[in-house]
């Protein structure tokens, strides 16, 4: 990969990739693998970008599509973790990705959601409109609002009492 492309087209959008990859991974090692794969696929598909949408929308799409189909075995403890329907009192050291404790808790709750719900809520939190969310995920904008309401309720239940 040319470092120019990385510096000019990926680094300014790294936050988008990080936000998405964090929601689909449970360890620093997985996160770095996912981040790298998204960057690699962005570079590989750069010639297909025709400018019909914003570059940031392109980054969202590639990042989500890569995260949804990446072949990486989850660690054993991850399955046990997902089996539970409540958050642990403390965020595991591995998931201490951000200095903001509430954000770490929120991410832990987001990881309890289904893959599709994670995509929807991440886009919503990044202030995408219902139409944009529907365009990126390929769903129906009319259903997005209802789904977001449900996801927020579930997140609230998961987070109840965990964040002040």
């Amino acid at each position, binding site marked *: 990969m040319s470092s120019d492309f990385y510096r000019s087209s990926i680094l300014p959008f790294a936050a988008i990739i*990080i936000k998405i990859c964090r929601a689909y991974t449970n360890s620093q090692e997985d996160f770095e693998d996912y981040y790298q794969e998204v960057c690699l696929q962005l*570079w590989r*598909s750069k010639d297909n*970008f025709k400018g019909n949408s914003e570059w940031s929308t392109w980054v969202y799409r590639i990042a989500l599509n890569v995260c949804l189909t990446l072949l990486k075995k989850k660690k054993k403890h991850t399955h046990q973790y997902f089996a539970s329907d409540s958050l642990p009192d403390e965020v595991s050291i591995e998931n201490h990705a951000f200095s903001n404790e509430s*954000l770490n808790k929120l991410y832990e709750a987001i990881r309890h959601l289904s*893959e599709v719900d994670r995509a929807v809520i991440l886009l919503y939190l990044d202030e995408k409109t219902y139409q944009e969310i529907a365009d990126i995920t390929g769903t129906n904008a009319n259903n997005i609002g209802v789904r977001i309401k449900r996801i927020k309720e579930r997140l609230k239940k998961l987070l109840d009492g965990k964040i002040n």
Partner: protein
Amino acid sequence: MEKSIEMIWKEGFLKNEDIVIPKINDLYNQKSKNIIDKIIRMMKINNVVLIVFAISLLIYTLIFKIPVILGIFLFFLFITQAIYATIQINNVPDIDKNQNSYLYLKSFHSWLKGQISRYMILSKFFYPTCVLSASLILWFSEGREEIIEKLYNQFPDMIFIYGIPLYLILVVLLACILVFIFSEKVYKWDINLVYGRVFKKLEEIISDMEELRN
């Protein structure tokens, strides 16, 4: 007071220095972990193995004085499969990762299913061919006389067809039929072992998205 998730998100990402960007080195030369790229890599490796195997068989028949016509036949048999696999690799569509997630997952899923069904058909012929090749090579190897003698002592009334004991023909034939019948099951089991989790996950995501589309 309890914060809304929107507030937590905003506050959490307020300071950009909080976002630590992972270091990546020599990214372009790193292997992709994406399932499509991984399957293509596996197909290419299989192809190389087939070609090496075909050449080795030919050399083996020449060195060990096994009828060269058999070596040539097996060589072309495996090379034909290698050519078929090459066509498959060249026909791999460049699945556009910029499609919306639903279309991307759908095209990815149908590509995977197509590959598996094609390889399932191929395996129906590939596995029996391997059994037949191994049997023929064993038959023409040294020690054949010894085997026949042992069999003859055991079954004095044994019938020979073109100098080959009927029992041996039946055993090889049975093995080929069994392998032919169970090849699909073996292939499915093999694929499920490696990609089962991904298939299940894909199907779940697609059905969840379909619910959101309707």
